[in-house]
C-alpha cells in the first residue's frame, strides 16, 4: 500500500515538478539553494500527500504546499555559501528569438522580483502562473480585495525598482 502511494506520488511530482522549480527559482539565487529548497518542498509534499483527497487538482495543491514551505517552513541551511549567482543559468538565450533589449529587460525584471519580500514574491508567483484573485487570496489567507490592493502595490514597487 505504502509502495503504491509512493509510486503514485513520485509519478505526479515528476510530471508537475516545474511548479516546484519555479517556486525555488523565485525564492533562491543559486543552484545549491535551489536544490535544497526543492528537496524540502518534496518532503513537505510527501508528508501531506496521504491527506490529499484529489478534490483539488494536484497542481493547485502543490502551489499551496510549495509556497508555504518557501515562505514559512523552510529553514535555510547554514552550510551554504552564496557564491555562484543564478543569472547565467537562468537566462538561456534562444538564438532565433534573440533580442537585446527584451533580453536585457527580462534580466532586470527578474532581478527586481528578487528584491521583493517573501509575500510579494508569492503574489507575483501566483500572478505569473495566471491564478485569479480568488485563488491568490485563498492561498495566502487574505481577502480578495486585499490581494488586489497588494498586487497593485507590488506592481508599483517593481516600477520604482526598475526606474529609480
Amino acid at each position, binding site marked *: 500500500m505504502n509502495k503504491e502511494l*509512493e509510486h503514485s*506520488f*513520485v*509519478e505526479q*511530482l*515528476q510530471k508537475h*515538478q*516545474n511548479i516546484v522549480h*519555479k517556486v525555488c*527559482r523565485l525564492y533562491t539565487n543559486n543552484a545549491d539553494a535551489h536544490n*535544497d529548497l*526543492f*528537496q*524540502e518542498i*518534496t*518532503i*513537505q509534499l*510527501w*508528508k*501531506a500527500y496521504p*491527506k*490529499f483527497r484529489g478534490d483539488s487538482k494536484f497542481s493547485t*495543491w502543490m502551489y*499551496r*504546499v510549495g*509556497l*508555504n*514551505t518557501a*515562505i*514559512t*517552513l*523552510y*529553514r535555510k*541551511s547554514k552550510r551554504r555559501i552564496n557564491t555562484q549567482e543564478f543569472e547565467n543559468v537562468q537566462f*538561456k538565450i534562444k538564438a532565433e528569438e534573440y533580442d537585446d533589449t*527584451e533580453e536585457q*529587460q*527580462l534580466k532586470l*525584471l*527578474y532581478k527586481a522580483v528578487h528584491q521583493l519580500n*517573501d*509575500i510579494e514574491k*508569492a503574489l*507575483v508567483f501566483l*500572478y*505569473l*502562473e*495566471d491564478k485569479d484573485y480568488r485563488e491568490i487570496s*485563498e*492561498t*495566502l*489567507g*487574505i*481577502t480578495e480585495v*486585499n490581494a488586489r490592493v*497588494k498586487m497593485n502595490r507590488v*506592481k508599483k514597487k*517593481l*516600477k520604482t525598482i*526598475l526606474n529609480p
Partner: protein
Amino acid sequence: MDELELLKKDWQSGETDFKSYTDSDIYPMLHRKSSSIVKTLFYISIGELVFWLLASVLPYMLSTTFREKLDESYENPLFIGISIFSYLVILLFIYLLFRSYKGISSTDSAKKLMESILRTRKIIKFYVIFNLTLFFLSIPLSLYFEYQDNPEFHQQIVEASTTQMLVFYAVSAFTAGFIILILWLFYRLIYGILLKRLNRNYKELKKLEV
C-alpha cells in the same frame, strides 16, 4: 503593466529551463531529513520538557542530603500541593503541545499556517514562563521552609540585624532575578533567530488587513 506581462510571457514559456528530475532522483528525496522550522520547534519543545524535568529530578537523585530534606518537605501539604500542581501543568503542556503540532498543516493558507506555528510557540512560551515563575517563587519558599525546619538557620535569622537582613534579601532577589534574566534572554535568542522570518512575513500579511 507591460513589464509584468513580458515577464509572464517568458515565465510561462520557460518550462524547460530547469534540470528535470527523473523518478529515480525523486525517490531518495522522500526519505531525506526535513529541515523545517516546525521540526526544530518540536525538538526545542522536547528539550524544554526534558530540561525542566531534569532540573526538578536530578538534584533529588544525585544528592542524598537534598533527598532527605525533600522527603521531609513532603510532610508539608503546601509543598505537596505545589508538586502535584507542577506535574499537572507538565501533563497539560504535553497535551496542548501535541494538539498544537497536530494542527499545523502545510496545506492551510499561508496565514493560517503561520498562526498555528505561532500558537505552538506561545504554548512553549507559557510553559517557560510557568517554570521561571515557579523557580522564582521556590527561592523564598525554600528559605521559608528552611526557616521553619532548621533551628540553626532560624536562630541566625532571629539574631541578624536589619542591615544584614536587607543584604540577605537583596542578594537572594538579585541572584534569582539574574538567573531568570539570563534564561529569558536565552529563550528570546533561540526563538528570535528561529522565527525571525516567520514573524516578518506574518506582520506583512497582517499589515494588509489594517
